């Protein structure tokens, strides 16, 4: 009796240990599964951002930076009229680009989703939309320059057609050319999510609307538009964040005559003013985050997906 009790005790503890191990694994497993992403995000997102925030409080002179805690970078940034002008300018580009890409994106997606009946043709035409993306961003941008220039294709074409006598100067190195390049570069980022949302709309809803006596415009406004909101929101986030952070498009297409925040940061980096650039980056990050949050407040992506 006692003997069996004694022998059974260790086996009981062993069984308990095994059970604990068995119970432990399911509890740890999710953490292990999440670990790679967590580590990646920590290393490549959180650490760099924290570094930037830290550096934004450092001091600097023309060659070196000094670990410190000063607010001059922020005060110089926020009290300078240039900063405000540059932000306004960048927001202007973002707003214009957003409005135009939204118009184009919605129209193209609507055409693809509702006018093209066969799935094969939908896919073919969709792929056609992506063709420009097979070449580099910079090439697509730069190719506008000889086209729009004073002696470019467009101007010489218009002149030889007798439509104008003087080349149109505003075509290149102007706000017009900057926005044009942005629209060209980022329209697809609007088309894809909107197209995706539209394809998920149950066709029965549209039939129901028609049966209920709704006109085409009413269907568009009251059925299709609300249901494509998540796509519009995602596309808008893409376009707005891309435009807000851009520097090379603005530099090349404005001929270096306009400023954007990205360009301002790039200038500061090139002049070794890392702390000033960091402060600028932190402010830009905050502004863009506020814009994204605002967009998400208007459209709850997760609910409507």
């Amino acid at each position: 009796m006692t003997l069996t009790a004694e022998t059974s005790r260790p086996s009981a503890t062993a069984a308990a240990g095994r059970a604990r191990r068995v119970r432990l694994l399911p509890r740890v497993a999710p953490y292990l599964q999440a670990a790679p992403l967590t580590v990646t995000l920590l290393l490549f997102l959180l650490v760099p951002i924290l570094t930037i925030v830290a550096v934004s409080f450092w001091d600097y002179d023309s060659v070196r930076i000094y670990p410190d805690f000063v607010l001059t970078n922020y005060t110089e940034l926020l009290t300078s009229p240039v900063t405000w002008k540059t932000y306004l300018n960048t927001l202007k580009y973002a707003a214009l680009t957003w409005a135009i890409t939204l118009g184009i994106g919605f129209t193209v997606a609507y055409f693809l989703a509702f006018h093209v009946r066969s799935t094969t043709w939908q896919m073919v035409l969709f792929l056609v939309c992506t063709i420009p993306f097979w070449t580099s961003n910079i090439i697509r941008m730069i190719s506008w320059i000889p086209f729009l220039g004073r002696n470019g294709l467009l101007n010489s074409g218009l002149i030889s057609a007798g439509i104008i006598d003087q080349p149109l100067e505003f075509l290149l190195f102007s706000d017009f050319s900057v926005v044009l390049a942005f629209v060209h570069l980022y329209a697809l980022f609007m088309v894809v999510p909107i197209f995706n949302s539209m394809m998920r709309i149950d066709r029965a809803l549209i039939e129901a609307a028609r049966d209920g006596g709704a006109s085409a415009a009413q269907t568009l406004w009251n059925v299709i538009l609300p249901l494509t909101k998540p796509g519009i929101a995602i596309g808008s986030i893409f376009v707005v964040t891309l435009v807000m952070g851009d520097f090379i498009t603005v530099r090349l297409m404005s001929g270096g005559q306009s400023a954007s925040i990205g360009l301002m940061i790039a200038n500061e980096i090139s002049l070794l003013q890392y702390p000033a650039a960091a402060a600028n980056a932190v402010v830009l990050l905050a502004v863009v985050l506020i814009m994204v949050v605002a967009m998400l407040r208007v459209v709850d992506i997760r609910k409507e997906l």
Partner: protein
Amino acid sequence: MTDTRTPSKSATLSTGVSRRTLLKGTAAVAGAAVGSGAITGFPTIWAQNIKNVTLRQFGTGVSNLNAVADKVKEDLGFTLQMTALDSDAVTQRAVTQPKSYDIADIEYWIGKKVFPAGVMQPMDVKKIKNFDKIVPIFITGKLTPESAIAQGTAPHTVGFVEGKDSTKFAKAPTEWMTLIPTIYNADTLGIRPDLVGRPISSWKDLLDPAFKGKASLLNIPSIGIMDAAMVCEAMGEVKYGDKGNMTKEEIDKTLKIMTDAKKAGQFRAFWKTFDESVNLMSSGEVIIQSMWSPAVAAVRSKGIQCVYQPLKEGYRAWGGGLGIAKHLSGLELDAAYEYINWYLSGWVGAYLNRQGYYSAVLDTAKQHMSPEEWAFWMEGQPAKADILSPEGKVMEKAGAVRDGGSFQDRMGRVACWNAVMDEDRYMVRKWNEFIAA
């Protein structure tokens, strides 16, 4: 002493070269070439293991030439790795990653920023064989004893430090040189003579309303501000104490004039890179702009007329040099000195002169150039034969004359050197305002 040597020699040459002296000259050149070959053999004890040395050089694209690295391997036996960056990146890297390079090929104004950071070591002039023959601009600041010292960061003001471990620039030449000059030139405005429609003679023509929407300025603040200052001074709008070291008030006034011109639509674009300036000019978007001499050559090579116009107010000059990183010692340091001595021994000098730049030691470079080349590039005479680039491409047809003329005419009329100012930070902020305006 050395001040007079170079000018007087080429002066006699330009006044008339008889066939006899020319022949004598070539013989001497050939002799010297053989002699220098014997010197560059360097049969020293470490001649064997120097082959294992690799020197890492970085700098701006102008003088980081692969041809030089190949020739170093051939002549000296060791490997020279080259990295070309733009001048902002060069400054950054020189200061923030001093261990990442052995030799820095930087401009003098960059040197003014970099050297005080203590990342480089000065060179012992006793170990520089051709030190005596270096063009005096880099030693005393004067091309000839009579010439005036130009404004800005003149190379001689940052060319020497007070001692081996000092980072303080010396007022007069010492035995410790910060940078050995390699390449320099005098910059001016580039124009499209077929489109400007009138002779251009002054910096102020950049802001002539006749060229509204057809002018451009380079957008590198430390250089652009100089061109802007040359313009404002020529207009008589601003008087400068030193264009290379402006007061806040002078900066404000200069950029006010530029901003007004920008708002009035004077500028078509601002350029930052070499190729941008070439494209602006060759496409006809811009017909007058600040430009660099190889960019003018690049426009011309497309068959488009372009002139590097000499202006009555003088040139804006720039110069670069080789410096040694602080961490270099022992065999590698010896190799670095070896390399620098070789650099001044003529082959590179001739190579650079043939590109339209100037080299530091003219006597040795001359030995590696044909008399026709020398007469065209250095003496401003009409080319007797087609002038070839170092790669063998025809740059100028026979009969052409170099824009701006001879070495004396160009380097003797420098009004200002590229500079970094005491009010640098303020200037950059104001410059950014001008660009954003």
